[in-house]
């Protein structure tokens, strides 16, 4: 099987998983968490830096041209949503994680993906996920700040953007980070029998 065709298919399917992630919600007292960032990170872990980023760019492109794949719909006007910055962080996040797991590799056969993931220590998996998390928050908070001040023309302090844009999400995301570790361990174990 050509590695390229496999990469194309898997990338497209991770785009679809990212869409699904936006609609799986875990209701929590303050802010509900979605499984979306989990899918973004998994795209990085499984696809490597290049196709990981591609899968997320595709997600943004599909949403911006009008498929209702974002949490609140789609279409070009979505760039006005104050939360659009988080979406901008997705490709970056997947790329960072992919780079930490697979280095500069692009097309990989399944066996190589699994081998890299199995070889990675827990610390590396967690650090990669943590960096991937920051890569979503950073553009997210900056955009929130920018959108508040520019599109809406408000005087919106940076502390406020930081609080509403990041600190309230932090507990849920930290939990997801540890869920990722368990997930990756389980998936690699399961592929041992099958791959």
């Amino acid at each position: 099987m050509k590695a390229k065709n496999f990469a194309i298919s898997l990338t497209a399917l991770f785009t679809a998983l990212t869409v699904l992630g936006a609609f799986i919600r875990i209701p929590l007292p303050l802010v509900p968490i979605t499984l979306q960032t989990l899918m973004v990170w998994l795209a990085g872990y499984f696809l490597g830096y290049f196709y990981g980023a591609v899968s997320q760019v595709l997600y943004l492109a599909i949403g911006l041209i009008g498929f209702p794949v974002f949490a609140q719909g789609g279409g070009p006007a979505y760039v006005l949503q104050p939360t659009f910055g988080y979406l901008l962080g997705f490709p970056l996040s997947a790329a960072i994680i992919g780079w930490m797991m697979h280095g500069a590799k692009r097309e990989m056969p399944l066996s190589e993906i699994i081998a890299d993931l199995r070889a990675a220590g827990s610390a590396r998996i967690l650090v990669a996920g943590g960096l991937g998390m920051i890569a979503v928050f950073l553009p997210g908070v900056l955009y929130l700040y920018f959108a508040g001040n520019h599109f809406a023309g408000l005087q919106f302090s940076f502390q406020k953007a930081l609080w509403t844009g990041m600190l309230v999400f932090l507990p849920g995301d930290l939990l997801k980070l540890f869920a990722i570790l368990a997930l990756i361990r389980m998936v690699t174990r399961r592929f041992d029998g099958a791959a």
Partner: protein
Amino acid sequence: MLSGPSGIEDSLISKLDPRAKLLFVIVATLSLFVGAGWIDLLVWAGVAAVAQAVSDIPVRRFLAQMRGFLWLIVLAFVLQMLFLARPDEPFWRLWDFDMLMFKLERAAFFTFRLFLFIFYSALLMSSTSPIELADALERLFKPLKRLKVPVHEIAMMASIAVRFIPTVSEEGQKIYKAQLARGARFQGGLLQRVRATVPLIVPLLFATVRRAEELALAMEARGYNSRARRTSYSQLIWGWRETLILLVALAVTVITKPMY
């Protein structure tokens, strides 16, 4: 869960080449957001009125498209009125007539601009199917092939992704129900809920990888080669109407900008 805006009616606008419509909206957006003043807004509003009249698209449809953003418009206006301040004055001096006028003017400006932008993208979305837009994007980005950007592969992946969104979400539902039947608990405390995602995600990932392998095999069996030159069933035709609307957009931009 997923279907593009359906029932796009035949009209002058829906028959235009999607590339032209896309470029028009991009020019309009840039013109509205970069160094724009009241004159830009008014001229673009005039163009919008003409476009709406020509489009044959019922106002109702527009409102449905814009519904998700109405709260944004209202919120922007309210917040501006409450918190906008001139640097030299405290924001609460509402009774000051000058101050009130200043606030009203700025709030109206920002809100109106937001409205116009949303209007133009709603016009694009309700007169063009996402498939047509994707097609248009692929053609517009074709010159990037010279720079080794894999335009065709990207378009291919986008269409696979869109095709598989319903399949993947159906699979997710099935797995969820199967795990429920096996006694998985998706309710309970925070930790329990996060833990419950594991029996959901692991089989989903497994199924996804399997499906990707099958797809890759199917592509191979059909002799798919991303490097090959491919032909397309749908043809885009650029005529004088397309050139005209693009010229209108550029003319509006050029005429309004030097006024500041």
